[in-house]
């Protein structure tokens, strides 16, 4: 009660200030962007990145001036910026980052195969036999590492860090491209915008081949703007601006060499619903969906569920998933929170907390398909 009261009081004070400043300066309200201070080609403090340019374009469309709160785009970003109230919109949010509310995508790009154009390779896909004899640079823990591992190329990989390390103990992300140009690695599977920037803006002699998703491994991503969950008003204004500025956005992206991948023609897989009311219990959008159950079956083994719950869900060191006994409850929301490690006193290790929502629902769709208990007890 006391906290609610204090929060209300603080909002009132801040609201008052905003009105005062607005009145005094007679300037339009700024578009407050959460920017990365040092992450070219995306963004930097000198506003040289393509997201800075798109930010200026969108702000102008909305009749606002862009203002920046700087925070590196990595762990802690949302907590320290949008959630802390220092800014309102993050540009360049990939699908899957569930801690913010997405706008519709304003472009789609992918991981790419990149190699020097004087090497004489003719590599059109990750299945090219030529790859077997090459040293390949990839960013550690990115989907291409997995795609290449699946093809038995683990021995060929040199791993690079995708993250800016404030302690300076690791190389910057562009090191991979520098090594590629220098011949330290023969080919690479980097994130497309980094490779495109190197080729287009720095005139590196690179061939760039965009990739499409593989079964179970996403390689292409929709990129959206992200706002605070619940800020539907700003989301709507930004989406209107995206619609109006589509062509100019594309021009900026092309200028920076960002490889653009067309959106899927097929009907998109249903996305994880973003609950309008954050308090409402979650429900699995994939229950009974054969394609999602098949995805879930693969994940069930891949992330280790079968080791404890049994290859067919019959249990082992952990409980059976096929009968009527559910320790904490059987509804979707409870099982979602169990997988995410959010149930107090749960014995299942809280190691899947970073698993995105989509695979969690795919897993649950598969688990539901195993049920052989009393049909009258189904509450999902």
């Amino acid at each position, binding site marked *: 009660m006391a906290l609610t009261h204090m929060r209300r009081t603080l909002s009132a004070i801040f609201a008052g200030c905003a009105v005062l400043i607005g009145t005094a300066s007679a300037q339009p309200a700024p578009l407050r962007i959460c920017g990365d201070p040092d992450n070219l080609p995306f963004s930097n403090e000198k506003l040289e990145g393509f997201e800075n340019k798109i930010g200026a374009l969108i702000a102008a469309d909305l009749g606002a001036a862009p203002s920046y709160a700087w925070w590196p785009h990595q762990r802690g970003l949302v907590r320290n910026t949008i959630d802390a109230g220092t800014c309102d919109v993050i540009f360049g949010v990939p699908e899957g980052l569930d801690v913010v509310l997405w706008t519709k995508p304003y472009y789609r790009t992918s991981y790419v195969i990149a190699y020097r154009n004087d090497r004489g390779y003719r590599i059109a896909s990750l299945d090219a036999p030529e790859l077997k004899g090459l040293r390949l640079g990839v960013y550690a823990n990115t989907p291409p590492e997995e795609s290449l591992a699946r093809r038995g190329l683990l021995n060929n990989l040199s791993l690079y860090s995708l993250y800016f390390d404030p302690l300076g103990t690791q190389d910057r992300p562009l090191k991979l491209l520098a090594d590629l140009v220098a011949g330290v690695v023969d080919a690479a599977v980097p994130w497309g915008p980094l490779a495109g920037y190197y080729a287009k803006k720095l005139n590196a002699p690179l061939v760039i081949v965009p990739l499409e998703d593989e079964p179970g491994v996403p390689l292409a991503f929709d990129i959206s703007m992200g706002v605070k969950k619940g800020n539907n008003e700003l989301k709507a204004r930004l989406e209107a601006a995206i619609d109006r500025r589509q062509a100019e956005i594309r021009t900026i992206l092309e200028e920076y060499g960002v490889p653009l991948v067309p959106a899927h023609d097929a009907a998109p897989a249903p996305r994880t619903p973003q609950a309008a009311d954050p308090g409402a219990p979650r429900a699995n959008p994939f229950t009974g969906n054969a394609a999602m159950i098949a995805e879930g079956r693969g994940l069930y083994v*891949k992330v280790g569920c*079968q080791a404890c719950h049994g290859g067919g869900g*019959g249990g*082992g*060191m952990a409980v*059976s998933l096929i009968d009527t006994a559910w320790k904490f409850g059987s509804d979707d929301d409870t099982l979602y929170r169990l997988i995410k490690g959010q149930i107090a006193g749960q014995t299942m290790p809280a190691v899947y907390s970073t698993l995105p929502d989509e695979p969690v629902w795919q897993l649950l769709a598969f688990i539901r398909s195993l049920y052989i208990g009393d049909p009258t007890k189904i509450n999902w």
Partner: protein
Amino acid sequence: MKRNICALVAAALWLPWAVTANQDLMSRQTDDNQWALPGKNYSATRYSTLSQITSNNARNLRQVWSFSTGALRGHEGQPLVVDTTMYVHSAFPNHVYALDLTKEGWPMKWRYTPVQDERAVAVACCDLVHRGVNYVQGKILMSTLDGHVLALDAETGKELWNVRNADPTRGETMTMSGLVIKDKYIVGVSGGEFGIRGWVAAYDINSGKQLWKAYSMGPDADIMLAPDFNQANPHYGQKGLGTSTWPGERWRNGGGSTWGWYAYDPDLDLVYYSTGNPGTWNPTVREGDNKWSMSIFARDPDTGMAKWAYQMTPWDAWDYDGINEHVLIDVTMAGRPVKALVHFDRNGFAYLLDRTNGTLLSAEKFVPTTNWAERIDLKTGRPVEVPSKRTRQGVETKDICPAAMGAKNQQPVSYSPRTRLIYAGTNNLCMNYEGVEVQYIAGAPYVGANVRIFAGPGGHQGEFIAWDPAAGKKVWGITEPFPVWTGTVVTAGDVVFYGTMDGWFKAVNAKTGAPLWKQKLASGSIGNPITFMGPDKKQYIAIYSGIGGWFGLPVAGNLSREDPLGALGAVGAAYGSGLDKATSVGGTLHVFALP
């Protein structure tokens, strides 16, 4: 004998702790009134010179005492008897009881239950077992499921020190007993199904300080190779292989857990143990020998440096977890005396090595259905594989024998110097095995295979056998409907004891294999029988019952029958043979004697 003990006592007054600790156990290991070391003695023969119970009178054995451990999951390992106190342990939560054998009913002197991180329960691979405690110089030393090693005052049960050896949030747990050598408590780690990188470590018995830690794989400095490592057998491999035999940096999650039974040769001053399966079970993603998973190690217990290592199953594709015990015996081969080490591996071969330098002298199939390899090439030390039985990702390779549970699991064998035979509980289990893609997530299972397990040819799932180690031949065997998952003990009365999953405890003539006696226990047994002399000068035999372990987990966990892949394949195997109808859960220590 008396003069020797006087000399020891006199020496103890002068020499530093390091030596007295050793002398305490050196004298107790040869005193057959006691059972003071997990394997009876440092050679781990599980042989006792006690001879009140003989093949002539064993039929008169009676249960004279029993004791509930207060825990329900599988009870592996054995109690200790030190002077006139018995130390009993249990499955998780790892209770310890000290019982006074001088008083009627053997009342409790104390009981102790460690405070544990419950998160360990979810990352134990195959039931919540424990394999027993150690005694040295008035202390009880033990491990806990959540990865601690600790010391108790043997008189009061008061905790003396308690340190962390393993981290359950990374899938590391402990179920082993370890071994005390000189002033060091030497332990390993479980977690081969969680992508750990296995190790052994030595802790100071007085302070709990870690003195050394040697990994199973990784850079040579981590594995701690002595400069003359494998000098006698360079073809086994020497430098650099802990990383170069793995793709990329897969060795970082290379498995090679170390939770088996350890042995020690005081003359050579070498401790022996082996490493388990490489991670993941899917071989396709880790092409290479995967050294030094699946290997027998000999190390200097003071420095931790490895003198030799021999890998049994290079590039494992079957989960033939190599942790099984070693028995140190002296044999005569081709007229020549050999200081031997005998190891019954899960892969179905009984290995006999020269324990001074690791030279392989023989390797024979102790379960004849073994079909993944033709034989072991004694020159190279490598298996001659049957290509159609090598598993890979995305293909269900069928009818491989033995199964992942092994031709023998962890239950230790015994050796009688009177009959010169090894007594072993074995499995007749085969499997279908499919490697599947798996992603490493710290603290999550990293198994990557679906395994179906079933009885091998003949339909029985187990056999208790007597084996001539010098000749490399089975002498006799008794088939059993279930895998024989208890250890064995053999005595100078020429009686050998073993138990069964369906709860029978049996005495057999050690020379002929003739059944002498049997008694039904409260639950199926996967424990190790021991024998000792009570203060009343009577010879006793003791064994735990309490079904569980990997094979028994479907019953211990009351799992449904519908999923044969449940419990990593144990559901299909255990329910296929009706184990759920044969026994139920509960830990009890049973003690037997003549009337």
